[in-house]
């Protein structure tokens, strides 16, 4: 079974958006394009207000992903857990769809007896280990995030350590919002390693508004751009093969 690539947006924020499109709608848009949106809400001593909490859960829900609110000390473990959990969730969705076609009647893995469920789970585990993964990380750099950024950096390095232990390929890219000129600014282009973040992150300036919605929308175009470029490439490949045959 071919699964292709799992695409995720990981949003790290500490509160409510206050400019531009509704981030929940943008997350739904992402889901329509096969991209999962996960959200991590980072707290310090302060508590995230009700509205912020609702938004974080809402984005993950409509983006088909996972959300988690954490204190910044626990960020490292949470980032890797959320990413992994969302990945498993997506894979389970794929496997479930295949199963539904086989079993019929809208039955899912959960309807199988426990023994057979175990075999399905092994397939999901195996896929989780080998599937290609693309994670676009969106970091909120509004003023309140300033002193949390070093922890965010640590957590992202930790994420690349965890995921690079898999045998499948990973690609990460990092965006911050608000950017210097635009709503979003690219920090790091698609790369299998996040180590190069160390030097870039210390130079980051924080401040301004929180345009979460526009940030997600921009991020989507970045996935698309890349995909169309790649599909172009692969089409070239195909024609090349045809010629050579």
């Amino acid at each position, binding site marked *: 079974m071919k699964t292709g690539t799992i695409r995720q947006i990981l949003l790290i924020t500490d509160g409510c958006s206050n400019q531009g499109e509704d981030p929940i709608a943008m997350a739904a848009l992402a889901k329509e394009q096969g991209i999962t949106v996960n959200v991590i809400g980072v707290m310090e001593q302060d508590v995230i207000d009700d509205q912020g909490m609702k938004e974080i859960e809402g984005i993950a829900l409509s983006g088909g992903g996972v959300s*988690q609110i*954490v204190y910044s000390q*626990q960020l*490292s*473990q*949470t980032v890797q*857990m959320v990413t*992994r959990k969302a990945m*498993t969730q997506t894979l*389970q969705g794929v496997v479930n769809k295949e199963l539904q076609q086989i079993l019929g009647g809208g039955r899912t*893995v*959960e309807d199988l*007896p*426990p*023994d057979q*469920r*175990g075999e*399905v*789970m*092994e397939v*999901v*585990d195996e896929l989780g*280990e080998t599937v290609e993964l693309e994670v676009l990380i969106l970091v909120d750099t509004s003023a309140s995030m300033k002193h949390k950024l070093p922890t965010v950096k640590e957590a992202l390095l*930790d994420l690349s*350590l*965890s*995921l*690079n*232990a*898999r*045998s499948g390929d990973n690609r990460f890219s990092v965006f911050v919002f608000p950017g210097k000129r635009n709503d979003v600014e690219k920090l790091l282009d698609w790369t299998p390693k996040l180590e190069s973040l160390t030097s870039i992150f210390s130079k980051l300036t924080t401040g301004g508004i929180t345009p979460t919605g526009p940030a997600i929308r921009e991020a989507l175009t970045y996935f698309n751009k890349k995909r169309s470029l790649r599909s172009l490439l692969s089409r070239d490949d195909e024609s090349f093969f045809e010629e050579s045959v």
Partner: protein
Amino acid sequence: MMMNPSLKNLCKVIPGTIIDGKWHHNRYTIIKELGYGANGIVYLARHDNKQVALKMSDNGMSITSEVNVLKSFAKVQGSALGPSLLDVDDWERPGKKVSFYVMEFIKGPDFLTFLQQKGPDWTGVMILQLLADLQQMHDNGWVFGDLKPDNLIVTGPPARIRCIDVGGTTMQGRSIKEFTEFFDRGYWGLGSRKADPGYDLFAVGMIMVNSAYPKRFTKSTGGIEEIMSKVRKSPELKIYEKVIFNSLTGKYQSAAQMREEILEIHQPDSRARKRTARIQQGAASQPSAKTVGSQPPGAAGRQTRKGYNKKKKKSTFVETVTIILIISLLYFFYIYSQIT
């Protein structure tokens, strides 16, 4: 690991609740909560007048995953590390379905509590038992993963160490799914999160450190020196200093090898002791040269790959420049010939 608060509420049940299995029709009465892990809550329950441990989660897949591990343990003859699996089933509560599995109830204090009661003399013995079990597990292609004192229980008498949470158990060669930072090689910058025997042995080393520092400590700079300075400050860890160092720096190929060295430390025979010292010196002198950078074994491979990429990039650059030069030269001649 973080606990999803909603998860905890979903499979929260009060003592006295009766759990009916949907598939196998077994009946369990909840006695009390024993604790909760990353993926669910474990209860003490009664079934046919026997006490059992019952783990529940609304995330059916994580239960299934753990059951797979326990089943594969059952195939290993005489393995006593994990609890034995008794039943797997679903419980249909009104409105939702909760998956659960039932295992043998392992009774006793956890590793650190046991050491506090009995004294540090028992550290060595318990670690020896643990290493023997780990060796068996590694031989069967598994790595425990989330190895920590909280997951270790000492039953008895006679005292016997057992593991209670197999949620982190991973096939060798795959990536570690679940870990606790203090016991994680990656957290300290001392290696990858790929499941290999060395990953577990690192955790064993840290368990020994934890026995002297029950409150643990957080990383400031990371690296081997930070941990070793703590080890040297502790009187009860002194005799294990070399073993801990070797386990943390990935010097041991197998749990059996580490076990052998701990045994030799406890050997009153001076000849054996001398030999140990020599082995340890040999092992220790190697890494001390590169302690400052303390490269994990995986990092070396990564670096060479990076180097290769750089070389490749360089060569493509040279290629590009040459092509541009040649074309501009030809163009120059062409223009020149046009003029003349």
